[in-house]
């Protein structure tokens, strides 16, 4: 990271040595503008995304169409929402491996609330999101009060959630037969003409909420402080323990929402899967420039990261790259995009 360092030895992130000055130079100045400027910088990282989009558009006439772009956004929605919540966790220096199977469990709970218990739509949806919050709360308590390292605490939760999904559902999908409108949460077309699904609109709203939370509220400030130096933050009189619980709970709420949307999309709560989704979401966060060491990151970056992943997957399919080559291509593009982004920052 540390861009202008002249020492040859300290390549990577872990080097807390002098001079992250380029960043500083950009950041310096009136505080009112800081957010905008931060975003602009991210918009430069946007460059990778633009290039990828341009290449695919050139390669296939079917890529850059309204319908296909909406398909990409739809594909990005669920992972993207998971990634938004987990951005907060990662900025504190933590990690959340339970988001994938946690989401599946939330989907199952949506089925329980709406189909088995027959709650009205709004109540079932709210209960599901809150249930996600409870998963996050438990993670937060395990990490913050019991002191279990985040990786282990959320790994345990990942396994527990995976199992409970099967147990609660009886290893069968639950259908939303009582509330057929449930599926419109994700699928309802909200713009006449093109099929712009409500779920994508919800994703966009969540992006805005997450961005505001992270950059303009006390929660966001403490998120960065804790990730920057947890011990110093605690000694400054911040109730780090409580804030960490809040942050994991917040991530859990996003998981709950993702569970609602994915179940809504499939009109059913599928009790399996979810494993591996956490890596996808974390990858989106990290590709977006958020550091796993904590203290650095942004929502804009996460969104770009999620889009890069979704565009790559879609585009490679559109141009019919044989599937066994697709993951090779995704791997290489991720490496190159991140490398170029680092070069740019270093030069800036």
């Amino acid at each position, binding site marked *: 990271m540390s861009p202008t360092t002249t020492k040859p030895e300290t390549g990577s992130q872990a080097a807390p040595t002098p001079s992250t000055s380029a960043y500083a130079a950009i950041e310096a100045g009136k505080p009112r503008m800081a957010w905008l400027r931060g975003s602009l910088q991210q918009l430069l990282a946007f460059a990778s995304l633009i290039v990828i989009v341009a290449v695919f558009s050139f390669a296939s006439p*079917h890529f850059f169409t309204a319908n*296909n772009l909406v398909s990409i956004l739809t*594909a990005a929605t669920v992972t993207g929402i998971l990634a938004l919540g987990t951005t907060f966790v990662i900025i504190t220096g933590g990690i959340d491996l339970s988001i994938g199977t946690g989401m599946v469990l939330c989907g199952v709970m949506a089925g329980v609330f709406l189909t088995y218990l027959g709650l009205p739509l709004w109540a079932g949806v709210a209960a599901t999101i809150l249930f996600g919050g409870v998963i996050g709360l438990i993670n937060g308590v395990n990490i913050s009060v019991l002191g279990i390292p985040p990786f282990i605490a959320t790994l345990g939760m990942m396994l527990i959630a995976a199992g409970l999904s099967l147990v609660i559902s009886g290893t069968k999908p639950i259908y939303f037969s009582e509330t057929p409108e449930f599926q419109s949460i994700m699928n309802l077309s909200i713009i006449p003409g093109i099929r712009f699904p409500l779920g994508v609109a919800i994703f966009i709203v969540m992006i805005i909420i997450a961005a505001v939370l992270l950059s303009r509220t006390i929660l966001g400030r403490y998120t960065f402080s804790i990730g920057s130096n947890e011990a110093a933050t605690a000694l400054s009189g911040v109730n780090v323990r409580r804030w960490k619980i809040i942050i994991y709970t917040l991530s859990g709420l996003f998981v709950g929402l993702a569970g609602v949307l994915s179940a809504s999309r*499939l009109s*059913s709560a599928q009790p399996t899967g979810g494993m591996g989704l956490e890596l996808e979401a974390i990858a989106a966060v990290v590709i977006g420039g958020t550091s796993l060491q904590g203290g650095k990151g942004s929502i804009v970056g996460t969104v770009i990261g999620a889009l890069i992943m979704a565009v790559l997957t*879609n585009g490679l399919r559109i141009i019919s790259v044989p*599937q066994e080559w697709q993951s090779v291509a995704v791997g290489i593009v991720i490496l190159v995009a991140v490398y170029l982004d680092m070069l740019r920052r270093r030069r800036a």
Partner: protein
Amino acid sequence: ASDGGAAGTEGGEGGDKPYVALVSKGFQHQFWQAVKAGAEQAAEEFDVEITFEGPDTEADVDQQIQQLQTALDKSPAAIGFAALDSQAAGPLLQQAKDSSIPVIAFDSGVDSDIPLTTAATDNLAAAAEAAEHMAEAIGHEGKVALVVHDQTSVTGQERRDGFVEYMEQNEPNIEIVDIQYGGGDQAKSADLAKAIISANPDLKGIYGSNEGSAIGVVQAVKELGIDPAELVVVGFDSGKAQMDAIRDGLMLGAITQNPVGIGYETVKAAVEALDGKELPETIDTGFYWYDASNIDDEEIQAVLYE
């Protein structure tokens, strides 16, 4: 050699009933749950103890081998096994033979002479039948694509190849434009079906090779708002979503196997082997094409699961 546990009545699970361990290719999916249900039904009928286990994904050969190993360590009276890879299981099957534990293969053949019999669906023929119905529905010409659940498993390959070979041999005017693999995950299959449809606006039909793939394709058609009359979807296996899609006209029809029958026949064969009866080389558990016209027939309803 393992400690005791020779064939006969000594159950590994403590009780007096013979214990039959079933190691399948999965346990989470509806299909496997139906196999399990059939096995349990037979267990009750023939008064044996069973366990039913399978790896989390059908790509996880190693996990299956471990489950088979554990099953052997429990000294069962007989084993039912649906191999992900026959050769990979070779040493363990040999171990079972050495310990005189009879092995019954199910779902797909085990490429070895150790299993006494195999209770399975002929996937190649089943996929060919799906292809035949597809060809008919699109008027024997145009582009079609496949969304397959798995690239490397025998079932995945057979259901792909049966379909492809039928088209190549019988339908010169049908072109297969794309084959993609979605791991049987509905959302992923939906996303990739959408990409296929976007890339081929004149596509006539899509075939989904298992429940998750087929429902994913239906989901893609729904999300893209395509007129079902213009894009023919055929599927495989059953489940409520697929049955609903057929009733709603979003899907032409699907092939269903007889998973309950597979489970039932496997346990039954194991019991017969313990009783020293002669077993046939294969037990064909059959498959059926179902669509809006026959979905409510009694014979079909018997093999469908929700």
